[in-house]
């Protein structure tokens, strides 16, 4: 049984080292990836639907499949660990040693699996964060007035012109078209008809549940602010994941220490069973030397 402990011990320390190193690791698996694109479609989606669309895109990725599989395997191992722990407590003798060894092996496998899950989860969060940042950058590019003073001035002038026009349009209509001498143009008549239809449609769109503005702490926010909020959430989850990695590293260290303790215990017991003589006092052998041959 001793060589098995030595191997287990070595693997346990390797698990500790791997778990610690995995904090800074990149993608867990070359195949388990998620490559979402910050597409025009995504940028144009209503803010309230954006998160759901990203979730749906993720669910169809190999990374989501790998995460699901790891989650299922972890649940199975969790149940197995509970059963093994109960069996160790009731067993005795060699069977107990064998069960303890298996329990240690299972704990080690559980930690490796959990480490892989953390890597996959980290990959998911980093990809999500990068996607939010790309979407925010696209939104910023779509609004040049933010950075360009000329564009900002133009937007301001357009807004002022539009407001002035809205306040004077009725007077212009009255002056130019009310006397009947000048017929309203086809554009004017058609525009009014279309504007009424557009008004109804816009009202329906605004009232549609899928188009409802997202809320943060009960306050409606625009798409940009909502994306920033989602990015903050992803960063928070990444920080918590780092903390969970630390928990995992301590667990791995405990498994290694348990393996060392068990190896020592078995070693001592075997030495006792073999009854190896102990020569503690050299004076006990004096008789062999004082008598002439």
């Amino acid at each position: 049984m001793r060589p098995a402990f030595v191997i287990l011990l070595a693997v346990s320390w390797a698990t500790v080292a791997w778990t610690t190193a995995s904090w800074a690791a990149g993608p867990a698996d070359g195949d388990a990836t998620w490559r979402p694109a910050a597409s025009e479609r995504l940028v144009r989606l209503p803010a309230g639907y954006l998160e759901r669309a990203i979730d749906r895109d993720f669910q169809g990725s190999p990374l989501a499949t790998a995460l699901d599989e790891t989650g299922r395997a972890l649940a199975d191992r969790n149940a197995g660990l509970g059963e093994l722990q109960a069996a160790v407590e009731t067993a005795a003798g060699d069977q107990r040693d064998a069960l303890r060894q298996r329990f240690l092996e299972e704990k080690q496998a559980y930690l490796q699996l959990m480490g892989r899950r953390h890597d996959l989860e980290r990959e998911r969060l980093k990809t999500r964060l990068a996607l939010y940042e790309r979407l925010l950058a696209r939104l910023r590019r779509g609004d040049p007035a933010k950075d360009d003073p000329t564009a900002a001035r133009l937007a301001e002038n357009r807004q002022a012109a539009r407001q002035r026009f809205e306040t004077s349009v009725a007077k212009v209509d009255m002056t130019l078209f009310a006397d009947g001498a000048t017929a309203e143009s086809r554009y004017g008549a058609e525009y009014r008809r279309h504007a009424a239809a557009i008004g109804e449609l816009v009202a329906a769109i605004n009232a549609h549940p899928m188009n409802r503005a997202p809320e943060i702490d009960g306050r409606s926010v625009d798409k940009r602010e909502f994306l920033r909020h989602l990015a903050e959430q992803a960063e928070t989850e990444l920080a918590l994941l780092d903390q969970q990695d630390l928990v995992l590293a301590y667990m791995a260290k405990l498994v290694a220490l348990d393996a060392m303790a068990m190896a020592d215990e078995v070693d001592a017991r075997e030495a006792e069973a073999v009854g190896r003589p102990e020569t503690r006092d050299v004076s006990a052998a004096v008789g062999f030397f004082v008598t002439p041959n």
Partner: protein
Amino acid sequence: MRPAATRPIWSAAFAGLLLAASPAAAGPLENLERERAALLTTLLDPALDPDGRQERAVPALRRLVDLERIVLRDPHTAAGAGALANRAFADYDLTFLAHASVERGVSPLDLWLDRLGLSSDRLLAARIGLR
């Protein structure tokens, strides 16, 4: 208000300036500029009698009103128009001449000349000379 003799000069000058400035691409802003130039040319045309001028100016004014509304209502008007859009939206009275003249209760031509600083008083006070 203005001496009739000055009209041919202004007519030729403004029409030339406006039409020369019109680019070949026909976006809403360019169409607006062209239509406004056509209206001003009609209003300043010395060859037209008052009835003939009125007959041609009314439909031109109606088209100008439509074009001004298209430019004002279209959120994409300014996109890609660059300096033309900057200039256009910087001076509402000159760009949206039809609406601004009704709003101010003056004729389009009077508003146009006024915005360019060409009042009757100033014209009468002007002297011919070399610069």
